[in-house]
Every structure is written in C-alpha cells, then in structure tokens.
C-alpha cells in the first residue's frame, strides 16, 4: 500500500451527508485511517468556545509545512478525533508545548525515528477530565486518553503536514503515533507528582509533552528492593539500538514505574531523586560494547567521552540526572516502562488553563 495522499487545497465548506464525510476526508488525505466525527461548524464553535480564545488566534507555524496553527484548526481536529469541549484546554496547552523551540517539532515530525509526542497530564484537571492513569493506560479503552492523543496526531498531520512517507519520514512509524496520552497515577505514587518535581504547584494542571518511542517493558516479578527493580529499568534503557546515548546532549529517558514497583522502590527509602540518580548511574554501557554497532562512528559525544580509551569504562546515556524523568502510572502487576526520547527533542511542560 502506498502512503496516504497529501492533503489537498479545499474549499472552506463542503456540503456532504454525514455518512459521506469520512470517505471524502479519506480521499482528501485528512484522516489517520480511522473514522472521524464530522467537524460541523456547530461542533467546531463549541470546541473553540471551551478554549476561551479567538478562533483565529495563532500559536505559530507548525512544521514541516509551516502552516499557521490556529485555535480553530486545533478545534476542527479535536472534533474529528472524538474529543469533547472539556478536553480542549488540554489540547491548547499541549500544542503550545509542541511549538516551543526546545521540543524541536520539525525534527520530531520529519525524522526517520519512530518518535511520537507522549502527552502526560498532571494535576487536579486530570482527575476532573477522567484522564486514565491505571491499568492499560497506554492502550485502548479510555475515551479521554484516546481522543486527546488522537487529536494531537490529527493536528500534527493536518496542520503541520506530517504525512507518513511524504513529510513524516519515519521508517516504520509507531502505534504510538495513533494516540499517546496518559495521566500520572498521582494517588498511587509514593512521591510528589511529576509536575511538582518540575517546579509547578500541586494545584496546577500541567501537560508535559515528551517526544518518545513506544513504551519498552520492564518485567520484574522478583525484585524486592529498589536496586533490584531499578537495575532492571536501567538494563532496559541501555540498548545499542536506541537513539539515547548516541546523540548525547539532548538525550532523555522517561521511566514510568508501575505502582507496585514504585511502592517497592519507595519502601527501600528511595526518593524520586534517588531513582533518577540510580538510573543515571546504572543505565550505561561499556565503551567496548558501544563499539559493536548502533550509531558508533556517527555519535555526538562530549569531549570527555570521546577521550575515553578503556573499553570497560561505563558511559552514561543522558547528560545529567535531571534528564531522567520519573513518574508512576499503571495498574496492579509487576511491570514498568522505559520511554527513550528521540534525542533531538526535549520535554516541555505547559500549564493548562480553564480545566
């Protein structure tokens, strides 16, 4: 099958029967392949109203086609994704985070790497909206997560022009590109919420966008100590095939601990800072192993790493302890996840208003 056709220039209004809309949108290359909710003027107006901003208000141009990213365009895609107006403030904050230069959305949209922006929602708004943080949170079954994540993808495709095989050059893509949105299980976390650790107030609702791969599983049904579990986390993080560590300066790791793993780690006296430090110190590979493949030879390391000659020397994957993000999500069970970033995009957080 060839890639989806490019979006066409089109009139502002189409007169179609409801059942014709999906086929027409597919023909024009305006969908992700799944059925959409037709973005009628009434639905779009209701969505815009929930954001409290003028429809023509632009947050800037969105790469790779550098189109104006207006409130109205975001609203159209939110309707198509199945979102409801109550979700819209989260989307507005998320899009502003994506357009922050530190996120490097151009790189995220156009790379061959299978990166997708993961939306993490923290704070009281997450519970009010019903954003799921429990069992199966990365998977299907939860409307708020599914539709907010899908709305982000439709914005990236229809406003930014990130069409697979044409402007989104991902070699294989990722299922995370359909929808990738979770909340933190704050009530089950032994530590302060992620957004508080990033400097926000507990009472604020905050969206954090992390340009990551799909989750890599950490299975540990045996560990009864923090080092036992976190050595496993570090091992999952340290793989030759990851971008993280090769393009060093912007490498980041997101560790999503399942609540049971988090409880075991905390019971051993570990704070979030201890977890970050442990992963930073142990998610490493020896120089001799790094020479086996991956990106060795076109890596971008700081001078001190380039000067290492001892093949047994363990080299870090990320520049600092603060480039390890730690949060808690999931349900019962002994699984966690590591999400490596794409290494040319840094996580960006924004406060969500009106939620």
């Amino acid at each position, binding site marked *: 099958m060839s890639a989806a056709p*490019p979006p066409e220039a089109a009139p502002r209004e189409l007169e179609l029967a409801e059942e014709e809309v999906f086929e027409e949108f597919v023909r024009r290359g305006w969908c992700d392949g799944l059925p959409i909710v037709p973005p009628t003027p009434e639905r779009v107006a209701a969505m815009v109203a929930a954001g409290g901003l003028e429809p023509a208000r632009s947050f800037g141009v969105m790469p*790779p*086609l*550098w*189109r104006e990213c207006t409130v109205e365009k975001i609203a159209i895609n939110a309707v198509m994704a199945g979102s409801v107006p109550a979700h819209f403030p989260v989307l507005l904050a998320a899009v502003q985070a994506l357009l922050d230069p530190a996120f490097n959305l151009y790189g995220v949209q*156009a790379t061959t790497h299978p990166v997708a922006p993961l939306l993490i929602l923290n704070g009281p708004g997450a519970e009010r909206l019903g954003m799921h943080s429990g069992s199966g949170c990365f998977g299907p079954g939860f409307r708020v997560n599914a539709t907010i994540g899908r709305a982000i993808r439709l914005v990236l495709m229809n406003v930014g*022009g990130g069409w697979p095989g*044409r*402007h989104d*050059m991902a070699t294989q893509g990722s299922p995370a590109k359909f929808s990738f949105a979770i909340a933190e299980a704050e009530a089950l976390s032994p530590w302060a919420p992620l957004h508080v650790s990033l400097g926000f107030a507990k009472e604020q609702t905050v969206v954090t966008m992390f340009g990551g791969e799909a989750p890599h599983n950490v299975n540990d049904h045996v560990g009864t100590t923090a080092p036992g579990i976190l050595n496993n986390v570090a091992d999952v993080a340290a793989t030759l095939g990851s971008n993280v560590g090769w393009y060093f300066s912007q490498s980041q790791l997101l560790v999503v601990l399942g609540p049971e793993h988090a409880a075991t780690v905390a019971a051993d006296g570990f704070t979030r800072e201890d977890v970050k430090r442990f992963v930073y110190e142990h998610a490493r590979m020896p120089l001799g192993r790094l020479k086996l493949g991956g990106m060795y030879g*076109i890596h971008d390391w700081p001078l001190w790493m380039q000067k290492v000659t001892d093949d047994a020397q363990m080299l870090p994957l990320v520049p600092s302890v603060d480039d390890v993000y730690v949060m808690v999500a999931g349900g019962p069970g002994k699984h966690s996840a590591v999400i490596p970033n794409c290494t040319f995009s840094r996580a960006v957080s924004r406060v969500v208003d009106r939620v």
Partner: protein
Amino acid sequence: MFQKLALSEMAALGATALPLLVVQHPLGGEKPEGVSRRAAQAVEQLGSLLGAP
C-alpha cells in the same frame, strides 16, 4: 526520498524558485569512500547551482 519533503517545504514557504541540492539516500551505512563520492557530487552540484542564472 527526502526530496518530496524538501519540495513541499519550499512550496509551503513560497520558495519554489530556489535551487535544490540533492544528495543520494542513504548516507547511513555507506563506507567512507561512498560518503566521499557523495560529497564530491554535492560539491559539483553546488558549483553548478551557484553558477546558474
């Protein structure tokens, strides 16, 4: 393969008249002599493009 992206961006930015220097894909996995050959071709193209009216 990335030429499509470049052409679309040029169109989006109203810069279709700009010349385009194309380096054959892929570069990754090429041996050093292959990369040198691509670099030489790119320099040659650049010279032609700069000299074009």
